[in-house]
């Protein structure tokens, strides 16, 4: 069932919405998810939707986007269109296990048997949570800290479904897992999605997430992903955002890392209305490695805010961060990176870089790289730059007969490539490379087919 409500005062109405629909929320969701709801709504009552008064949301006031007439689905509704007709994975080299989620719900149209390696469990968190309550009991809600951020509390209180992935000990998932998140329907919608990824010891998986919008309505998405990487686990998460300008997305990824685990996250924002990406990494044991990357190419009135927090709680860990942005038209961007090296987390290496290109007079960027260090035997650095294309490089290209327009594209593309080359899945890297180049050439339209997940062109998506 879908409830539509008019939101003006945020907190009060969302609280009322929760109270009125608590029965629906509790119905059908696994016990562990329901257990946390009461506490979560308490935190939400205290914290609310962050405005720019909250230090961590200083450059992104989300309150206006959560207002208005929004519909929330409290049960899994069948989608009218056939997903198979819209999406065709026509990238032969890029073999993957595709999974579709519609408006935050696991789609019934997904294949029943993915042919995944033995022991791997993938599916709806609501469904699997009931079959394997012990897994949720052990991990659900352990990474996503809800007492500091009102949006995380809100997600924990409202979310009913999402993707669940469990990779058992020693299993290497051969092909990439491709998660396609679709927002569709003919009403303005608010969706909550809650994903949980559990990587047992010595396991490996690569996950690609594609974010899409299929119809020209206003969408507000509040999604939380928890990743638990046990000893020696290797996990890559690539997130390609390609949504229309009416979308507001808050995507929070919380990663708990155990000894010798290695995690890569890469948020590639090609198109979005307002996007806020949170990446929170906690290094709970020694010798973890974490790489956090982000690329944002924005134009028109888009706003992208990347926030990252790396908690070096134990010694001998490594973290690198690289965020690059190209801002065109009236686009605004923000970056905030916080590295915390706790007492006794000796021999920590943490590097953080944020580089931005401003292309027009109206584009704007706010950057806030932060280091908080309580141990002495560390190597930590951060750097942030804002500038334009290098005149010398431009001259070099021009002197070799490259036209100015072409030279600009080449230089911007080279600027962005530093992030793209960090993608560890080669076919995907190639796809994204092509996509970004097209984006710079102005050939990539929201109407185009998505070369990554094979979404076909559709006039409805043209915005």
């Amino acid at each position, binding site marked *: 069932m879908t409830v539509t409500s008019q939101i003006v005062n945020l907190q009060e109405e969302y609280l009322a919405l929760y109270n009125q629909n608590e029965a629906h929320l509790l119905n059908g969701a696994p016990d562990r998810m329901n257990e946390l709801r009461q506490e979560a709504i308490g935190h939400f009552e205290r914290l609310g939707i962050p405005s720019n008064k909250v230090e961590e949301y200083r450059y992104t006031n989300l309150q206006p986007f959560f207002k208005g007439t929004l519909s929330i689905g409290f049960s899994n509704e069948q989608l009218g269109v056939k997903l198979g007709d819209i999406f065709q994975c026509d990238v032969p080299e890029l073999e993957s296990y595709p999974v579709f989620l519609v408006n935050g719900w696991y789609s019934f149209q997904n294949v029943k048997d993915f042919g995944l390696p033995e022991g791997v469990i993938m599916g709806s968190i609501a469904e699997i949570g009931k079959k394997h309550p012990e897994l949720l009991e052990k991990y659900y809600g352990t990474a996503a800290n809800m007492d500091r951020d009102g949006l995380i509390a809100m997600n924990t209180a409202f979310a009913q479904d999402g993707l669940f992935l469990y990779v058992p000990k020693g299993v290497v998932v051969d092909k990439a897992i491709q998660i396609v998140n679709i927002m569709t329907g003919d009403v303005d919608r608010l969706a909550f999605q809650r994903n949980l990824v559990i990587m047992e010891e010595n396991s490996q998986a690569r996950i690609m997430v594609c974010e899409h919008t299929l119809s020209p309505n206003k969408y507000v998405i509040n999604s939380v992903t928890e990743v638990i990487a046990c000893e020696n686990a290797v996990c890559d998460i690539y997130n390609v955002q390609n949504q229309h300008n009416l979308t507001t997305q808050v995507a929070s990824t919380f990663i708990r890392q155990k000894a010798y685990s290695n995690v890569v996250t890469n948020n590639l924002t090609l198109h979005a209305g307002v996007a806020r990406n949170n990446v929170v990494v906690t290094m709970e044991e020694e010798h973890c490695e974490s790489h956090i990357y982000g690329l944002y190419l924005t134009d028109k009135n888009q706003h992208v805010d990347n926030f990252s927090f790396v908690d070096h709680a134990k010694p001998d860990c490594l973290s690198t961060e690289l965020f690059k942005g190209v801002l065109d038209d009236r686009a605004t961007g923000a970056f905030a990176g916080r590295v915390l090296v706790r007492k006794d987390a000796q021999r920590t290496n943490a590097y953080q870089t944020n580089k931005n290109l401003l292309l027009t007079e109206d584009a704007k960027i706010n*950057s806030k790289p932060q280091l908080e*260090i309580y141990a*002495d035997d560390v190597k930590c650095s951060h750097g*942030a730059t804002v500038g334009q294309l290098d005149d010398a490089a431009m001259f070099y290209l021009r002197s070799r007969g490259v036209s100015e327009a072409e030279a600009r594209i080449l230089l911007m593309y080279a600027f962005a490539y530093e992030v793209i080359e960090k993608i560890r899945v080669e076919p995907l890297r190639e796809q994204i490379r092509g996509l970004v180049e097209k984006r710079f050439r102005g050939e990539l339209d929201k109407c185009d087919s998505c070369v990554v997940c094979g979404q076909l062109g559709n006039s409805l998506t043209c915005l």
Partner: protein
Amino acid sequence: MADDQNKILDEVTGGEYKYGFHTDIETEMIPKGLSEEVVRMISAKKGEPEFMLEYRLKAFRHWQTLKAPDWAHLNIPEIDYQDIIYYAAPVQKPQLESMDEVDPELKATFDKLGIPLDEQKVLSGVAVDAVMDSISVKTTFRETLAEHGVIFCSISDAVKEYPDLIKKYLGSVVPYSDNFFAALNSAVFSDGSFVFIPKGVRCPMELSTYFRINAMNTGQFERTLIVAEDDSYVSYLEGCTAPQRDENQLHAAIVEIVVHDRAEVKYSTVQNWYPGDKDGKGGIYNFVTKRGICKGDYSKISWTQVETGSAITWKYPSCVLMGDHSVGEFYSVAVTNNYQQADTGSKMIHLGKNTRSLIVSKGISAGKSQNSYRGLVKVSKKAANARNFSQCDSLLLGDRCGAHTFPYLEISNNSALVEHEATTSKIGEDQIFYCNQRGISTEDAIGLIVNGYVKEVINQLPMEFAVEAQKLLQISLEGSVG
């Protein structure tokens, strides 16, 4: 090897505060507490004109509506603003005609601090304004400076003698509504220095103010105002010390600088308030608002600070680059040891075209101290071709201290070129090994490396100050290198 180093570090950073003495001098004080009555009393004691009292009262009323800021990376104990004496002055004859009339006890105090109040003895030719607790004791070289048209006097005198200038400039850079401590200072400020450099004058000597807290239970609230007219230049120094006490004393100052076309002001601080003992007991709480405005085209402000004292430092010397082609610079060394906490940095607000700014901040933390750099570089939409480079390095001596960096970059103009770099590390064992190998003891090696690390900033200080600063660094770090 590591043990040895730790021992030497402990020795190096365990130095004593040598300005911790107390002068026994008759002091006039008003009762504890802060109210409108107290503000009126301070104003009356200083014989101020009506406009000053009005200003103070406005500030006080505004202050009452404010809450103490808590955003800094500092652990500030609750301060009871009613438990502080807001005015304390050494009793002395009202008008000083010559040096002989300065209370010998007072003179001895400043001699002990190495501050020459006696003009004959001065070799370096630095004009000094000495401020003890709430009042200015003596300003040297006033006459020599007056010949050049330079006004250098205590702010209390300036209020009476140059009310027009005070009316025009006081509060024009840091309005009383700026922040909690600025409002407090505007309400109760007692003394400080006023400097006015007229058009085209290059101030013939360095100007210096020396601040000393002496009385117990008092707070010090000084106010400095520097105005540099077109094509003028001045270099201004500021030093501060306080006796060693178990209680915490509050110091909330405001420094305002106004620089007109093509003028330049260089402001150097060696801050050495009592930092508290090695268990973190006592020490000065230092909450300072320093801001300069480059009003004219091609104007320049340069801040240099060496911060070694204070239990808590909360200080962000800033430049508002309003004139086209104006330049702002900030050089800082902040040393924290034992339980000291510092949250300091700079703000560079680019408003004019072709403005440039440079931030060089070197933090050194030892003991159980916390040292943060917090800075803002803001390029407004109209500030075409703004250029900024910031470098914030932190050096950790010991594994119980913290070093933090919180830069904010807000860029709204595409022709801006802004770079920020920060690194955090400890003294490398390879560096020490290299020195050892060449016959330099570990202790000397550490001294050498620290000195090299801060050189870039120390080089900006006038020579006498540079020597003092270097000595201070050695004392502050005595017993802490590991």
